């Protein structure tokens, strides 16, 4: 048997070997050590608001069902019948009381308990149904974000998110006082490794280059808002591979600066909202519609990215699925939610004005990085002026690669099982 690759030889503080995007053995290690031993985001609370609701999704390569049982508890279970291994649910979402395997009719409750086995007498009393529920993962939730893990021994979600939690709270202010809800998604694949996308959500450097054509398509005021490279923003390492990239500092806390002038592109919406809401509330809603000014990258598969959730799923070493999930105000004004949907369509998704250009860049990284051997991928931007805050967080300018360094440090810790290193930083 071939020796496993040594992750330590591939990733350093400020560079990585190009083969991290294309080595299949390394990919297999990642699926085990990262996607089975870290908290993986599976759903937003609003995806299954009522008892009986469920969705199907994946934890790494593993198909799972996320369900809400009669008592309201959320379960994440492998979508695999305990008898022959068939999937027990192929619907993307729905409401029901049980999951019945189509092959031999084994029936499971919303909590995964095995309820019924047809012709059970054929087991002569040797099948104890209690022993064969759907296999459950550990589930925890923070501010509407539901995560699961195979690993019963890793730290709590609360501890794992740690210093990222205040940023999650800030992100959820996009509800403008209403709860945040998901409003559909754009789903697409690109022919490249998942880490290329992981890096991108913490990469402000590419924005004015890759997204020229998007910037051409918006008004001057919006262009100025998005002219953040070289500005006052920053990237901050939040520990455990998480990081935040603040592009537009004025849009960090959406409940602040409510006296600021309403951007021209939202004047029509503001006027419409004024029919039903007082001026202060109108300003809060309009600010929420525009989204936050930061990307919060949560290792390894979720980003709370300005105005939407970005979820990545590795499909193979050189193919990755991305979902851009639109979010809105649950119970909020329809006109405001519709405005958010149009903004989402404008930039995101396979036909957006931003995403296809990102996908093109990632595609190029995958293909170009196959050239040659032992050539480094640089991760050192902003390192020279990186500093430490009082709470210990490393930070640098907005276009620094501090967030990537954070993610790769966690990657290395997970791949070598040295969590302690990630705890304390380098």
């Amino acid at each position: 048997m071939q020796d496993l690759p040594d992750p330590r030889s591939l990733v350093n503080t400020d560079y990585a070997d190009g083969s991290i995007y294309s080595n299949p053995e390394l990919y297999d290690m990642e699926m085990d050590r990262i996607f089975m031993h870290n908290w993986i985001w599976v759903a937003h609370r609003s995806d299954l608001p009522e008892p009986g609701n469920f969705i199907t999704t994946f934890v790494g390569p593993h198909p799972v069902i996320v369900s809400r049982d009669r008592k309201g508890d959320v379960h994440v279970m492998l979508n695999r019948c305990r008898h022959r291994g068939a999937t027990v649910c192929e619907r993307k979402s729905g409401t029901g009381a049980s999951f019945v395997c189509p092959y031999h009719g084994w029936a499971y409750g919303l909590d995964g308990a095995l309820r019924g086995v047809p012709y059970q007498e054929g087991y002569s009393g040797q099948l104890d149904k209690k022993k064969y529920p759907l296999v459950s993962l550990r589930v925890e939730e923070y501010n509407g974000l539901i995560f699961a893990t195979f690993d019963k021994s890793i730290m709590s979600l609360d501890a794992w998110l740690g210093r990222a939690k205040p940023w999650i709270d800030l992100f959820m202010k996009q509800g403008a006082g209403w709860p945040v809800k998901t409003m559909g998604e754009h789903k697409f694949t690109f022919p490249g490794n998942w880490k290329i996308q992981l890096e991108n959500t913490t990469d402000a450097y590419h924005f004015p280059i890759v997204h020229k054509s998007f910037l051409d398509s918006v008004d001057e005021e919006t262009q100025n808002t998005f002219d953040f490279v070289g500005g006052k923003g920053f990237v901050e390492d939040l520990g455990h591979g998480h990081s935040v990239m603040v592009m537009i500092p004025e849009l960090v806390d959406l409940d602040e600066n409510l006296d600021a002038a309403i951007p021209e592109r939202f004047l029509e919406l503001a006027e419409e909202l004024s029919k039903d809401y007082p001026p202060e509330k109108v300003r809060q809603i309009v600010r929420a519609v525009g989204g936050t000014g930061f990307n919060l990258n949560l290792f390894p598969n979720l980003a709370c990215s300005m105005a939407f959730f970005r979820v990545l799923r590795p499909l193979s070493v050189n193919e990755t699925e991305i979902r851009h999930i639109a979010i809105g105000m649950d119970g909020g004004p329809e006109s405001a939610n519709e405005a958010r949907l149009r903004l989402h369509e404008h930039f995101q998704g396979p036909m957006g004005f931003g995403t296809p250009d990102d996908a093109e860049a990632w595609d190029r990284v995958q293909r170009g990085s196959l050239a040659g051997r032992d050539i480094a991928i640089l991760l050192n931007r902003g390192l020279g002026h990186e500093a430490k805050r009082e709470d210990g967080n490393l930070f640098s300018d907005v276009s620094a690669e501090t967030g990537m360094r954070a993610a790769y440090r966690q990657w290395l810790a997970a791949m070598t099982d040295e969590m302690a290193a990630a705890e304390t930083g380098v």
Partner: protein
Amino acid sequence: MTITLNEAIELITLEADMLDHSEFREWLKLYTADSLYAVPIDPDAKVEDLGKILNYAYDNAEMREKRVERLLGGRSISAAPPARTVRLLSRYRMLEAGTESCTLRCAQLLTELRQGRERYYAADVTFRLKRTEDGLRINQKIVRLLTSTEALTAVSYIL
């Protein structure tokens, strides 16, 4: 006179040919000012409800113009150069025809070539056409991709 199937096919075939040959500015003129070009995700959503939900594209005249500028501007790396496309329309059915407007449904098979990769998209396309002073024009084009609820790849052109 009631709009005939032949009249309708003539217009939408011209549209398809223009899109495959990058005649985007001329393409814009085939649409009425109040028209909608949409590529929905939800296969069951009614046209009148598309504004309330997420789509791949939900373009009024202004957004269509921006899309064209993006394709012609040379500043979008996924569209410089744009993918080459060949689309075939067939299986035409007039769903509703009057003297002033008609609704036509057809099948579209599109092959895309970019960066050495060939990709395919099948779709049901529904057109609403209107008679105007300048002749027959497109008032609505709804492209319902067979794979709309699956993961797509970047579509940096007009379906």
